[in-house]
Each structure stands twice: as structure tokens, then as C-alpha cells.
């Protein structure tokens, strides 16, 4: 129903805006219906303004900026339909050090209610994990797991 869509849209948009500001350390963003009068079919555009920059369509942002916006959106949907855990596979790959720090700080905040499982190559991300598992393939094609760190 269009009511249910609008409620979902507004709730996710709220989460999205809050997470964006946390991940960018400022700025603003928004999901917008291309046609406000057509709740049944209207597509969605996303505009974003990193701190100090101009508000523009998200497709004009840099690779790392887009990744952060995408993360804010996907986690915004997750917060709307939460699970006991959240698994993120290499979402930090396009991020620079400063953005990885904001990402891990967000995990600390959300981690109170959610177990995070992170697949990563990034050393700063590894530092915030309580458990660290190394997957190896000493023998080609055969995976083994070694626990590297316990707290």
C-alpha cells in the first residue's frame, strides 16, 4: 500500500540522514521521490552534501564519498529491519584512514545492540575487533581458520 511505502520511506530516510552525518562528521543528505504525487510508482533520487561542499546528486561524488553514502543507506535500512547481527564484507575498501575511523566509531555505537562480523583487509578496522580470525590457504584450495586474537 502507498501508506506503508511512505512510512517505510520516511523511517529509512530518517536513519539515512542520521548515519550520513555520523559517517561524514557533518554535512547532510536526503532520499527524494522524483514525483511526490506518485507514491505508487515514483523512483528515488539521492542528493548529498559532504561538509563544506555543495549539495548535489550523489552520482557526482567521489568513489569513497559514494561508498560512505551507500553504507549510510544500507545501515539505515538495517536499523529499520534489525537483526541480532550484521555482516559487512570489505565495505571499507574504498575508504581513506579518516573515513575508516568514522566507520569504526559508528560500529562502536551500533555494536551495543548488534553483533558485527567484518571481512576486511584494513588494519585500522581489525584493531576494533574483539575476535580476529585469519583464514588461510596453505594448501591450495583448502581453507583453514586460525584465531588470531581474543579479548
Amino acid at each position, binding site marked *: 500500500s502507498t501508506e506503508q511505502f511512505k512510512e517505510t520511506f520516511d523511517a529509512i530516510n530518517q536513519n539515512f540522514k542520521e548515519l550520513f552525518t555520523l559517517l561524514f562528521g557533518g554535512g547532510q543528505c536526503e532520499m527524494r521521490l522524483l514525483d511526490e504525487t506518485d507514491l505508487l510508482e515514483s523512483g528515488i533520487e*539521492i542528493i548529498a552534501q559532504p561538509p563544506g561542499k555543495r549539495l548535489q546528486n550523489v552520482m557526482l561524488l567521489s568513489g569513497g564519498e559514494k561508498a560512505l553514502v551507500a553504507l549510510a543507506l*544500507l545501515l539505515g535500512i538495517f536499523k529499520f529491519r534489525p537483526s541480532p547481527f550484521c555482516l559487512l564484507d570489505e565495505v571499507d575498501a*574504498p575508504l581513506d584512514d579518516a573515513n575508516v575511523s568514522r566507520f569504526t566509531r559508528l560500529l562502536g555505537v551500533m555494536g551495543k545492540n548488534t553483533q558485527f*562480523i*567484518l571481512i576486511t583487509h584494513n588494519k585500522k578496522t581489525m584493531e576494533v575487533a574483539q575476535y580476529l580470525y585469519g583464514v588461510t590457504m596453505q594448501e591450495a*584450495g583448502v581453507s583453514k581458520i586460525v584465531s588470531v586474537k581474543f579479548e
Partner: protein
Amino acid sequence: HRIDRLEIYGFKSFCEKTDIVLNGEVTAIVGPNGCGKSNVADAINWVLGEQSTKTLRAGRMEDVIFNGTQKRKALGVAEVTLTLREFANGASLPADFPSENGEVTVSRRLYRSGESEYFLNQRRCRLKDVYEFFEGTGLGSTSYALIEQGRIEVILGSKPQDRRALIEEAA
């Protein structure tokens, strides 16, 4: 509820029985390219009932069974078991699958013949029972809980209608 641990045996590159404790606040999985990290994510997705071979990066569902290397023969069955803990409200778990010490195990097995088996607390059950159990624990909507490799790069590039579909799905 919390995820407690994962056991993988014969699933993709895990031809040897493998145990991972997952009950921390943040668990990191690391290692070189191609060593099996995303296969762990696929194992979690699979034991939670994923039926799409595309999502599991497989041609056919049979492709998730360890298919051998130059030194090892293929295996005949893949099995993944997820253990959940602190199962305070036992309401959604039917009496036929009693849980001890607040722990619940969910297992999925696939044979090369194509035959599938599902288990709750080590008792054989139907896929339907697994789904009903998950609905009660909030694990039913794990499609938003698993952000797979590469998804971040493409989610925004999607057309206005694809983005709408994202929101509609969650509604």
C-alpha cells in the same frame, strides 16, 4: 538472541571441519585474496536459508559442495551449523525441538544428489520450520544484515526504480 558460533564442513573451500566462535561484539575475518573469507559469509547466508545461487556465487546449488582440488577429491555433502544463544523467549521454537541451556542449533545439509536436509537442535525438520523459527528471532530479515562484497559499489549506481525496489522490499 545472539549468534554464538558457526561450524562449516564440506561447504565451498572448507573441506575440513571448521569452527568459528562469533559471539563477540565485533569479529573480524581477515586473510589473503581467495582464501575463503567471503565463503564464510556465504555459509552464514546459506544456513539461514538462502536459495538464490547467484547470491551465493554458485552456478547451481550443488556448486557449494567442496568440489576438489588438484590434490583432494570432491566431497559428497556440505553441512553448515549455526548456534544461537540466550534464547530467552522460547515461544517460537516448537516443542518437538527442545533446546537445552538456552542454545539453539540450526543445520543445513546438501548432498550431491541434490537432496537437502534441515535440522533444529539436531532433530530433522522441514525448511518451513527453520523459516518459522527465524521469523520469531528477527533472523528472518537477514537480507538486510548481510552486505556482500561489491554491493556498496553498485547500490547507488542503480536507477531510480531500483532504489525504489530497495525501499519497497523493506516495507
